[in-house]
């Protein structure tokens, strides 16, 4: 197997720019390994003819000034890709071929990237282990019986297994950061509104954000730069000048104030995670940062709030799947209503149905104030916790997840224990803030663990810098042994 595909995105870009490798050669290296890695089940769809054709076109007339020159990339199967199946991991969209391109993927192609394929994910991005996908669970390349996390599990697995040099996911409650932590990779959820949501299959519209998943912090800054940008087609898109994240990346974090929230030290958290958190604090301290203890008192209410807000928005968003305009349609039923009911019953999986029912209930007449309105009020308190502390600190350091990757099937019978996986990531989505998960170490089993840096609104550059400095001084090395080949 070629050593080239093990390299980071930034190194691969350098090789292309120095003309040491052609786009087509690179594409063939990835295609070869993807073909040999079906066991991981990280790809739902491949489009290799398209990949080769585009890479040939690139090689004929290479634009080396773009951010991702001739780089083949696979993306989460939640991004609509014009002419290529987009399933959202659901039977409902098994044969759906979008007639348009999502803004974020369009931005990647404009920067020279080339689509390799579509990556597995939890159904409609609802899950924390990639076990809810209609196309089967994904294997974490770190060990054959472990989950890659979710919902961007296919993205994390493919990236860690060198089946794509970088990728993109979406994060509604931790769906980029948790799988990044489980696979020893870097994942960033941008500020709400920084990446356009247009053309992304919707889950919970006030929380959904697309973001990069990469092998290094530098790669992450390149991908973020390529993805972002104001978009008229998304009414919540933020109008601002594009930042040069990769060029402005620096390791000097002297004098920065890093907050350590005491509420993130939760019961039953493995000792190793606490130790890793301490290691993180010490690294940043040695680099000249000030470590400051802070309190985010409403942290424990973030998950219950999320499990009202997200299902409520999902039940409304997923009302569009009626078997008429696109997607699956049941052949059973005597009238229109029965056709709807059977279509949705047969087309959605169990977790999606569960969340639609929760959402429908909390929005239903007589219960709206008790649940939905209450959750919106607590969301305000959670956001206020962050607002108050960001007067005192520049970034917040926490663990990314309360455990390392767990075994396939371990949590599927207990929804609450599955939901608790997102305990450290969910508050960030509720407050709309940017956060990055960086690999920080391995546990006793040799499974990776990540630390999370949370930033102020639109302060992506700052958390990228802190993560960059941390990465350079942490000496993390992912040990993936290609056991599936």
């Amino acid at each position, binding site marked *: 197997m070629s050593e080239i595909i093990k390299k980071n995105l930034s190194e691969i870009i350098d090789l292309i720019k120095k003309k040491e490798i052609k786009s087509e050669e690179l594409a063939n290296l990835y295609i070869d390994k993807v073909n040999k890695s079906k066991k991981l089940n990280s790809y739902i769809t491949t489009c290799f003819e398209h990949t080769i054709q585009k890479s040939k076109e690139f090689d004929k007339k290479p634009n080396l000034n773009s951010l991702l020159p001739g780089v083949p990339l696979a993306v989460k199967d939640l991004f609509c890709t014009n002419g290529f199946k987009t399933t959202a991991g659901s039977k409902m969209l098994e044969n759906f071929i979008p007639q348009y391109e999502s803004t974020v993927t369009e931005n990647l192609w404009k920067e020279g990237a080339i689509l390799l394929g579509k990556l597995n994910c939890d159904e409609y991005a609802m899950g924390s282990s990639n076990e809810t996908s209609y196309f089967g669970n994904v294997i974490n390349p770190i060990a054959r019986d472990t989950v890659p996390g979710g919902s961007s599990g296919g993205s994390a697995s493919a990236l860690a297994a060198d089946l794509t040099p970088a990728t993109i996911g979406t994060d509604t409650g931790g769906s980029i950061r948790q799988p990044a932590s489980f696979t020893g990779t870097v994942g960033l959820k941008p500020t*709400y509104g920084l990446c356009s949501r247009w053309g992304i299959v919707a889950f919970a519209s006030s929380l959904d954000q697309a973001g990069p998943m990469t092998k290094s912090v530098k790669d992450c800054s390149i991908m973020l730069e390529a993805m972002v940008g104001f978009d008229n087609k998304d009414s919540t898109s933020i109008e601002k000048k594009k930042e040069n994240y990769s060029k402005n990346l620096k390791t000097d974090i002297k004098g920065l104030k890093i907050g350590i929230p005491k509420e993130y030290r939760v019961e039953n958290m493995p000792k190793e995670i606490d130790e890793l958190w301490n290691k993180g604090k010490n690294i940043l301290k040695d680099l000249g940062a000030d470590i400051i203890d802070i309190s985010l008192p409403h942290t424990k209410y973030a998950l219950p709030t999320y*499990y009202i807000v997200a299902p409520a928005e999902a039940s409304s968003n997923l009302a569009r799947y009626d078997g008429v305009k696109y997607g699956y349609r049941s052949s059973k039923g005597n009238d229109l209503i029965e056709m*709807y009911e059977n279509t949705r*019953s047969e087309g959605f999986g169990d977790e999606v*149905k569960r969340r639609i029912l929760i959402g429908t209930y909390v929005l239903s007449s007589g219960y709206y104030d008790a649940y939905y309105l209450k959750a*919106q009020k607590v969301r305000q308190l959670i956001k206020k916790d962050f607002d108050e502390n960001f007067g005192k600190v520049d970034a917040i350091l926490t663990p990314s997840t309360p455990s390392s990757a767990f075994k396939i099937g371990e949590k599927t019978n207990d929804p609450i224990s599955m939901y608790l996986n997102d305990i450290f990531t969910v508050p960030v989505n509720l407050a709309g803030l940017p956060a990055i998960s960086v690999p920080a170490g391995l546990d006793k089993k040799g499974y990776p663990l990540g630390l999370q840096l949370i930033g102020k609104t639109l302060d992506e550059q700052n958390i990228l810098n802190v993560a960059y400095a941390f990465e350079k001084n942490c000496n993390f090395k992912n040990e993936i042994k290609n056991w599936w080949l």
Partner: protein
Amino acid sequence: MSIDKDKIKHISKLARISIDSKKSDSLAKDLTSIFKFIEQLNELNTDKVEPLSSILNTPLRAREDKINDGKIRDKILENSPKKNEEFFVVPKVIE
């Protein structure tokens, strides 16, 4: 809040999802535990708190009321599970 089979029947009707009666027991059990979990929020007094519906400080942007696409009928119909020339086909609604 405990969710029983009748409540599941009611909600699934509202959500237009038919639920197998065999599945509604386990669904009721799951939803009961989830609601118990989310009802932790009742520990908090939120009488004086403004609800937060969007984290953006600015109101949603309105665009000019101008046609900016069109002539995409065939594209829109492309993925329809059942169509007839330029129409989506649904089961008979009017006798």
